[in-house]
C-alpha cells in the first residue's frame, strides 16, 4: 500500500498516464482478441444468415452518415464556385483553400442558441425540420450509386422516390405555419404552391423513361441504359430531360426558383425564425436535395453508374485477388512508400541542394510516394472492381449537375411568384404531356 | 435674371403680391399671404405664359416673429427659379393651405414642415409627424428650440403648441432664451 502510493506520488504526469494507459490498452487488446475469437464465428454466422437485413441496416446507416459530409462538400463547392464567378476568392482561411469551412459552419450551427419564438407552435415547430430532413434523406435509399451499391432495389423505386420527395413540402408548410411569423407563413404557402405544382411535370416527365425501360426499379433503369452514351435516355427523351431539370430546380428550391426563401422579399421564408441545429436541418436538407436531384438526373437520363463508352468490363486482375497474393500487397505498399519517399528525397537533395532542408525533402518525397501509390492502387481498383468504376462515373455525372445548379445560383436572378406558377402550368405541364404522348405513340408504333 | 418673368408675374398676380418682385442671381422671389396660396399656385401652374410645372422644394421657415412657407418652382418658360414666399403665418397657430391639390408630392414636404415647425397644412390628408417619433412633443426647427445641451431651458421643448391650444404656449423659464438673434429679411 505505502509502496504503491509512494511510487505513484513520485511519478511524473506522463508516466502516470503511461502507467494507466498501457495496462488498459493491454487488457483491451487481449480482451478484444479473445472476444473476437470467441464471438466472431457466431457473429459471422448470424450476419451471413440474415444477409438481406444486415445489408439493409448497413445501407441505411451508411446513407444517414454520408449525408452530412455530402452537404458539407456541396456547401464548400457552392461557396467556392460562386466566389470564383464573382471574381472573389471565397473561403480561404480554414484548412487548405478554406476546405474546412463547412465543417466550421457545422460547428457554428451546432453551438448556436436554439431559439423558439413566443407564440410558436412548439411541437410542430420542432418537428418541421426533422420531417424535411428525413424526407430528403430517405429518398437516397433507392438511388444506385454503383452496381450492388444501393440501399434497397424496390421494384417501385421511382414511385417511392416521388412519394418521399413529396413529403418535404410538409416540413416547409409546418415550419411556415408554426413559426408565428408572416414571412414564414408566406414562405410556407409559397413552398406548398410551388412544390405541388412542379411535382406534376416532374413526375410526368419521368413516365416517358418508365415506358421506354418498362420498369420503375432504379437499378433496371440504369441497366437499360448500359452500353455507350448513345443508349442514354437523355438522347431518346431530350424534352423530358429539360422538363425534369427545370422542375427539379423548383423542387429543390434552388435559384432561380428559390421563392420559398427569397431573401430580398420574405427575409428567409419558412426558415426565418429558425436558428441553431433546427436551421441546420433545413440547411442540410436543401443541399442533400441538390445532390439527390443531380443524382436522379444522372440515373434516369445519363446512364447512372455506367460508363459513357464501351468500357472493357471489370478486368480480373489476378494479382489483386485477396485469396491469392492479395494480403501481401499491404506490406508491399508500405515498403514501396518508404523506398519511393527515400529515393525522391535523395533526388531532391541532390538536385535542389541547400534550398531543401532534409525534413522538407523527405516530406516532399513522402507526399510524392503517397500520391503515386494511391494513384496506382486507385487505378488498379478502378480496373478490377466494377463498383469503383460505378462510383467514379456516378459521382462524375452527379457533380456535373451539382455544378450546374451552383452555376445557375451564381448567375440568375429570381423569377416572380406568378411567373413561376404560370411557367409550371402553362408551359411545363403541356410540354410534359406532349412528351408522354409522343413517347407512348412511338413505343406503340415501333413495337408493332 | 429673367426680366420678362418679373413682368409676367406682375401682370398675372398684381393683386396677390405683397411687396415687389425681387430678383437676384438666377432666382425670382415673390411674396404672398397664406390666403392666396391656392389661387397663386394654380395660376403659376396653369397660366400658359408661366407653366411652373415642377415643384422643386417646399420649405418651412421660422423667422422668430412669424412662420413662412417657401416654394421653389421651375418652368420651361423662365430661366429663373421662382421662389414663392408665403409670409405672415402666425407663430402661435400656424396654418397654411396645402399644395397637395396641385402637386401630390407636396404631401411629404408638408409633413416635414409640420414635423419641424408645427405648420398645419389644411387639406393635407396625411399630416402626421414624418421624421420625429409619434410621441414627440415639440418642433425642433423652431427658433425657440435650442440644441440638446440647452433643451431643458428651451421654451419650445416639451409642448405641442398646435395640438394643445389649451396648454400655455410659453413655458416658464428664461423668456429671452427663445430667440437667439434678430430674424432675417
Amino acid at each position, binding site marked *: 500500500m505505502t509502496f504503491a502510493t509512494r511510487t505513484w506520488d513520485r511519478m511524473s504526469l506522463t508516466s502516470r498516464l503511461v502507467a494507466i494507459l498501457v495496462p488498459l490498452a493491454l487488457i483491451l487488446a487481449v480482451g478484444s482478441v479473445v472476444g473476437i475469437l470467441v464471438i466472431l464465428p457466431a457473429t459471422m454466422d448470424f450476419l451471413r444468415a440474415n444477409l438481406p437485413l444486415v445489408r439493409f441496416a448497413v445501407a441505411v446507416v451508411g446513407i444517414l452518415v454520408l449525408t452530412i459530409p455530402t452537404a458539407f462538400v456541396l456547401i464548400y463547392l457552392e461557396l467556392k464556385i460562386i466566389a470564383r464567378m464573382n471574381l472573389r476568392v471565397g473561403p480561404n482561411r480554414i484548412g487548405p483553400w478554406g476546405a474546412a469551412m463547412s465543417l466550421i459552419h457545422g460547428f457554428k450551427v451546432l453551438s448556436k442558441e436554439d431559439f423558439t419564438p413566443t407564440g410558436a407552435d412548439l411541437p410542430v415547430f420542432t418537428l418541421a425540420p426533422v420531417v424535411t430532413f428525413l424526407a430528403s434523406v430517405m429518398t437516397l435509399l433507392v438511388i444506385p450509386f454503383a452496381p450492388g451499391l444501393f440501399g434497397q432495389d424496390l421494384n417501385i423505386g421511382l414511385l417511392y422516390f416521388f412519394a418521399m420527395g413529396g413529403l418535404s413540402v410538409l416540413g416547409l408548410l409546418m415550419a411556415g405555419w408554426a413559426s408565428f411569423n408572416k414571412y414564414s*407563413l408566406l414562405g410556407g404557402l409559397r413552398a406548398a404552391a410551388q412544390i405541388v405544382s412542379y411535382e406534376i411535370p416532374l413526375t410526368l416527365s419521368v413516365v416517358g423513361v418508365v415506358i421506354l425501360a418498362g420498369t420503375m426499379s432504379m437499378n433496371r433503369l440504369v441497366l437499360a441504359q448500359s452500353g455507350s452514351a448513345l443508349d442514354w435516355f437523355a438522347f431518346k427523351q431530350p424534352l423530358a430531360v429539360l422538363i425534369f431539370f427545370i422542375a427539379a430546380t423548383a423542387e429543390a428550391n434552388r435559384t432561380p426558383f428559390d421563392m420559398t426563401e427569397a431573401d430580398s422579399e420574405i427575409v428567409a421564408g419558412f426558415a426565418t425564425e429558425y436558428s441553431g441545429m433546427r436551421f441546420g436541418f433545413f440547411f442540410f436538407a436543401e443541399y442533400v436535395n441538390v445532390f439527390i436531384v443531380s443524382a436522379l438526373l444522372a440515373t434516369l437520363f445519363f446512364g447512372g453508374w455506367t460508363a459513357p463508352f464501351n468500357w472493357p468490363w471489370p478486368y480480373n486482375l489476378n494479382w489483386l485477388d485477396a485469396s491469392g497474393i492479395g494480403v501481401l500487397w499491404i506490406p508491399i505498399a508500405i515498403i514501396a512508400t518508404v523506398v519511393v519517399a527515400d529515393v525522391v528525397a535523395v533526388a531532391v537533395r541532390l538536385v535542389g541542394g541547400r534550398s531543401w532542408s532534409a525534413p522538407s525533402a523527405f516530406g516532399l518525397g513522402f507526399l510524392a510516394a503517397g500520391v503515386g501509390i494511391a494513384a496506382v492502387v486507385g487505378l488498379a481498383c478502378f480496373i478490377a472492381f466494377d463498383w469503383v468504376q460505378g462510383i467514379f462515373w456516378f459521382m462524375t455525372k452527379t457533380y456535373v449537375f451539382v455544378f450546374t445548379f451552383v452555376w445557375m445560383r451564381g448567375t440568375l436572378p429570381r423569377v416572380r411568384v406568378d411567373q413561376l406558377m404560370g411557367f409550371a402550368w402553362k408551359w411545363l405541364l403541356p410540354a410534359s404531356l406532349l412528351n408522354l404522348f409522343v413517347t407512348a405513340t412511338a413505343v406503340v408504333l415501333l413495337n408493332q | 435674371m429673367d426680366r420678362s418673368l418679373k413682368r409676367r408675374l406682375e401682370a398675372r398676380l398684381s393683386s396677390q403680391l405683397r411687396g415687389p418682385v425681387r430678383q437676384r442671381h438666377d432666382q425670382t422671389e415673390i411674396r404672398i399671404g397664406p390666403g392666396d396660396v391656392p389661387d397663386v399656385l394654380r395660376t403659376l401652374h396653369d397660366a400658359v405664359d408661366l407653366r411652373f410645372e415642377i415643384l422643386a422644394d417646399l420649405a418651412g421657415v421660422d423667422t422668430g416673429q412669424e412662420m413662412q412657407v417657401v416654394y421653389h418652382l421651375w418652368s420651361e418658360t423662365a430661366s429663373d427659379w421662382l421662389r414663392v414666399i408665403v409670409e405672415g403665418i402666425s407663430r402661435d397657430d400656424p396654418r397654411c393651405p396645402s399644395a397637395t391639390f396641385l402637386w401630390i408630392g407636396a404631401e411629404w414636404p408638408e409633413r416635414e414642415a409640420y414635423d419641424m415647425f408645427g405648420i398645419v397644412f389644411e387639406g393635407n390628408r396625411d399630416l402626421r409627424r414624418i421624421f420625429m417619433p409619434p410621441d414627440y412633443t415639440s418642433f425642433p426647427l423652431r427658433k425657440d428650440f435650442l440644441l440638446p445641451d440647452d433643451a431643458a431651458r428651451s421654451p419650445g421643448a416639451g409642448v405641442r403648441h398646435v395640438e394643445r391650444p389649451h396648454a400655455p404656449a410659453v413655458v416658464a423659464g428664461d423668456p429671452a432664451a427663445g430667440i437667439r438673434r434678430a430674424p432675417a429679411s
Partner: protein
Amino acid sequence: MPIGDTVPLTAIRWDDILFVVLAAMLLGSALLVVTMRDIIRCGLAMIAAFASLAGIYVLLGNPLIAATQVLVYIGAISVLVLFAIMLTQTKNAPARLVFQTQAWAAALAAVVIAAVIAISVTATTWPSAGAVAWTDTTRVAELLFSDYLLPFEVVSVLLTAAVVGGVLLARRDPDENEEDRP
C-alpha cells in the same frame, strides 16, 4: 441462425408486433383528428394516420398502394388540406365549441357502427382466405390497362373535371373582389 418470423424465444410474430403498433398509431391519430381543438394539429394527426395506414399496406404485401398512399394522400391531399386550413384560419377559427350540439348522437352512431362491423366480421367465415401474398406490380399495370380501362378513363375524366371545377370554385372573381373592398 437467421432471424425468423417470430421474436426469438417467444411465439410472437414480428408482423403481429408491427401490426399492433401500426394499428394503434392509426386509431390513435384518427381519434386525435376528430377530437383535437386546434385544427392544424388535426391535419398533422391525419398525416400520421395516413402514414401508419401506408405501413399497414406494406404489411399486407402491397408496397405499390403504400407508395401511392404516401404520394397522393400525404403529398397532395394533406398539403391541400393544410393549405385550406391556413386560408380559412381566422382568430376565431379554434372555436369554443369544437363539436356540434348533437355530437353525442354521432358518437352513439359511431359506436353502433363499429360494433355491428366487428360482430359481423368475426361471425363470418370468409371463403378462400389464405395467407398474405405480395402483389405483382406489373400484373396490376396490365389489369389497369385491359379489364379496368373504362374505369381508368372515367377516373381520369373525373380528375380533370375536379381540377377545372376546383379552380373555378376557388377563383376569386375580380369584380366581386372590388366590391368586397371597403
